[in-house]
């Protein structure tokens, strides 16, 4: 088995979901990583810790252009005779994996949450996390896009060989006019800890207590749909069936009722804590730990206790 894993390293680091994809690939077969950007050779060699044996790096492609990235991956897949190509199902994976699939006529299982079964089927998220499907890929080359945070990374020690890799990239699809960086450095789709709040917070001016808790934990912040719709919080924080689907280790929801469309995007979380004044709120049925109480009182108390715990460790 020859496995090719594409990772996006354009922002200068190797993200956790990239490590996950590499390790996932290495459990299927001998893994080569293909990437582009400016990360140094010694750092790329650390991908060996996630099981990669070789890294192909292209220094020419410095944008996220899906058509050019597809050509790069196609050339790399040919050079290592890959029979499985793995992506992380992140923003780049969503843009590029389908193009690669169509270019190679290779079936794509997107949203994978586990390694392929003995019969080759891949378990994926469907119905916005309300169910799982078993996908059989009928083509010789298989493409798998892995949901971030669904498999852990156990670091081994290994060193990957790093080679410069050139490919005919063709024309750029567009010119990049501007890049606006998002504030805060914990990205919601790949966050392990998430603090989320809903309409129960009453107004955007009250989000300080949510942000304080998130900061004490090192968590990302999220919100329910109406909160993003009325503009209390940015759209990229909206989680649920029509927002971002997440699978953190811990999801803390304050002042969110737990409507079915909200649950769809968050019920893959390992542990759910619900804080709500209404003991009948539907969210308690999906919770591991419940606090029937006022978020305005509970959140600051929780933050203080987290700070105590952090001070001890």
């Amino acid at each position, binding site marked *: 088995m020859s496995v090719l894993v594409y990772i996006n390293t354009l*922002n200068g680091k190797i993200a956790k979901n990239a490590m996950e994809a590499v390790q996932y690939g290495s459990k299927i077969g001998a893994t080569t990583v293909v990437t582009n950007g400016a990360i140094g050779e010694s750092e790329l060699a650390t991908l060996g810790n996630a099981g990669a044996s070789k890294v192909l790096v292209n220094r020419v492609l410095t944008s*996220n252009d*899906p058509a050019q990235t*597809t050509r790069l991956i196609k050339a790399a897949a040919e050079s290592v005779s890959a029979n499985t190509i793995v992506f992380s199902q992140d*923003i*780049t994976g969503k*843009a*590029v*994996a*389908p193009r690669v*699939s*169509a270019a190679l*006529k*290779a*079936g*794509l299982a*997107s949203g994978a949450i586990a390694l392929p079964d003995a019969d080759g*089927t891949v378990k994926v*998220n*469907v*119905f916005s996390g*309300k*169910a*799982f*499907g*078993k*996908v059989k890929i*009928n*083509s010789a080359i298989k493409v798998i896009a892995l949901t971030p945070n669904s498999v852990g990374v156990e670091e081994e020690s290994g060193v990957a060989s790093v080679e410069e890799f050139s490919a005919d990239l063709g024309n750029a*699809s*567009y*010119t*990049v*006019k*501007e*890049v*606006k960086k998002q504030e805060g*450095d914990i990205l919601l789709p790949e966050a392990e*800890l998430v603090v989320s709040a809903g309409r129960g917070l009453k107004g955007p001016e009250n989000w300080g207590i949510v942000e304080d808790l998130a900061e004490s934990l090192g968590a990302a912040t999220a919100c329910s749909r109406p909160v*993003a719709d009325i503009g209390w919080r940015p759209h990229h924080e909206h989680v649920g*069936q*029509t927002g971002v689907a997440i699978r953190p*280790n811990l999801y803390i929801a304050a002042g969110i009722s737990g409507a*079915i*469309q909200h649950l*769809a995007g968050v019920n893959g979380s390992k*542990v759910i*804590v619900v804080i709500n004044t209404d003991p009948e709120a539907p969210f308690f*049925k999906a919770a*591991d*730990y*419940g*606090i029937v109480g*006022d978020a305005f009182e*509970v959140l600051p108390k*929780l933050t*203080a*206790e*987290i700070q105590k*715990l952090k001070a001890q460790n």
Partner: protein
Amino acid sequence: MKLLVCISKAPDTTSKIEFTDNDTKFNESGVQYIVNPYDEWYALVRALELKEQNGGSVTTITVGTATDDSIIRKALAIGADNAVRIDSEAGDAYYTAFQIAEYAKSNGFDIVITGKETINYNGSQVGGMIAELLDQPFISLATNLEMDGTTATINIEMVGGVEVVELDTPFVVSAAKGMAEQRIPNMRGIMAARTKPLEVLPAAPCDALVSFEAYELPPAKSDCKYVDPENMAELVDLLHNEAKVI
């Protein structure tokens, strides 16, 4: 400006998700189908706004059977000019993309717009595949799209931010939240939709690349453990020592 909007059906967001035939089929009994929210709220509405600003036409395309006609009429009621249905049971994403690309090739569109993903398969696959099959640029997860003549300026969701890009038509774009606001069809729209053209075309031969063999539901949650709101030390202890997530 000729715009093609890809419309898929999806089960209503409150549908009970169950499976039949040994967990190989989605149980459709009692399920109401709606236009997939991303297709309706963002892709279709932005296409209508672009037509209103620049002239042109908005065609919708759906790969599906006659049972899809009601959701297609809904898209027409919201304001699309005409609709095309490729008459076929839905195959996989590649099959769907192939049908749409074949139609787009022979009819020439400036922009093909899809929703970010469907809420039942969540694949985010069809748009990128259409672009590859048409050999056109693909803009994935656009949150804003402005046209000036044949030049588009588009905001793209990126890892850790937003990228603003510029390109000329033709291209394929998938629409995410932010592109437009939901429109509720009015009575006049609903009446007009009844007589708008809905062309039914045969599918082109194409083999699906993947198949769904079976489905399963997540394991039931164990009971919720309640913690006294005055005792957050206990919650922190449970999260630290029992759940081991912090």
